[in-house]
């Protein structure tokens, strides 16, 4: 009885470890699709216009976004940090904004860049 019980207990523990491990690995290894949108954002109250001179620099190669653009960004892992660089066309001064997105196990995200830059609490678009 003792041996059998111990063996089954061990098996259950191993199974739990395997499941937990699988969970962790999925978290670490999941690829997420993030769609960044540079159109007008009309969220809770404020209306933010699309940005000029916008570049996403956290990618392997910086991507430029014109007003109205939408790009697809792929990210791996539980969370990712997006860095936006906005160059004002008149003053040629640029500022950078970082945004950390906690992705967890969700696979698709739809974000509005003006909202992020504008400091909105909820930059997520419905669709």
């Amino acid at each position, binding site marked *: 009885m003792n041996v059998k019980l111990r063996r089954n207990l061990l098996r259950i523990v191993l199974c739990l470890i395997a499941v937990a*491990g*699988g969970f962790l*690995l*999925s978290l*670490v*290894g999941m*690829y997420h699709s993030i769609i960044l949108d540079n159109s007008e954002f009309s969220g809770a109250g404020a209306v933010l216009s699309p940005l000029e001179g916008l570049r996403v620099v956290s990618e392997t190669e910086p991507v430029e976004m014109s007003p109205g653009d939408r790009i697809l960004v792929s990210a791996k892992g539980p969370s990712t940090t997006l860095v936006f660089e906005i160059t004002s066309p008149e003053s040629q001064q640029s500022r950078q904004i970082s945004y950390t997105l906690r992705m967890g196990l969700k*696979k698709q995200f739809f974000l509005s860049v003006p909202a992020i830059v504008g400091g909105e609490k909820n930059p997520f678009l419905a669709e």
Partner: protein
Amino acid sequence: MKPKYSLKGALISNLVPIVFLMFAAFAVPMSGLSIPYLLHEMISRLARDSLLVLSLVIPVLAGMGLNFGMVLGAMAGQIGMVLVVDWGLGGMPALLVAALLGTPISIGLGYFCGYILNLAKGREMVTSYIIGFFMNGAYQFLLLYCMGSIIPITNPELLLSRGYGIRNSMDLPNIRQVLDRLVSVEVFGMDIPILTFAVIAVFCLFIVWFKTTKIGQDMRAVGRNRAVANGAGIPVEKTRILAIIISTLIACYGQIVSLQNLGTINTYNSHEQVGIFSIAALLVGGATAENASIANVFVGVFLFHLMFVVSPMAGKNLIGDAQLGEYFRVFVSYGIIAVSLLLHAWKKRHEMLERRLLENEGKE
């Protein structure tokens, strides 16, 4: 009296690989392919397929012949990969999760296969061959009808146009060559996937270690003589089932390694050829249904794939028809198994006759 080590004895016992080496020596120059290219191809294929062929070694130890049921392990690995792709995983974690998913499936399928093989003692090879086909039907049922309907698949890209059932082939952009590239060394302009070979080495060590354990010794005893093993108190049936389960597990991981190297899953075709080609490779390496060593695995994979790569070009240059070369390659693949089995059968009869002669001489 110990038989003296003779050249003749060495030639006969290694007949099959020698024959194919000679064949290769003839066909390689004829194909016109360059040595560096061939070398690179062979290294790549060794990394890809060795683990699959390795899975065949344990059942031979247990006296169960060549385990065509390894395709069940390959199926389990593939199901794991399909699920992992559906969940959007990539990189090394994807492979590990696929392995985690495939493990219980492999154990279940391995148990099923082993159980049936115990019912068909003396005919294990044909039976495992048919089990492979039978399971293929179940696998198709699962992937073609259940997935997407009863089993939810979240990624619509994986499904057929009718709405359920997995597509015939899918690319694995985030998984392709993940294990291979993780630790790779460049030698003479070729990338050598060190980590993959390390993983293979780990499994080789496992097999070597396993043979030294009590269970391993039990297995060898069962393989030599079931009745004697039974008399010694070894649980023959359970040991045989264990051998098949281990084989199925290794085949599952082997298929995952193979798929990450290829970067594409052929959902309904990949595993069918796996059994035929792995067994052919093992036989070319000099193994028989009663004796298979790790050396047989690597020599076999090397020679068999050499033949496989070289045959179409050689056929084309020799006869001038590429299509013919393709059929020639199929002919060689099947012919290898037929010839190996025949040669081995001939050898067995030869030995039996010699032994009988010696016995008769001894009596006089």
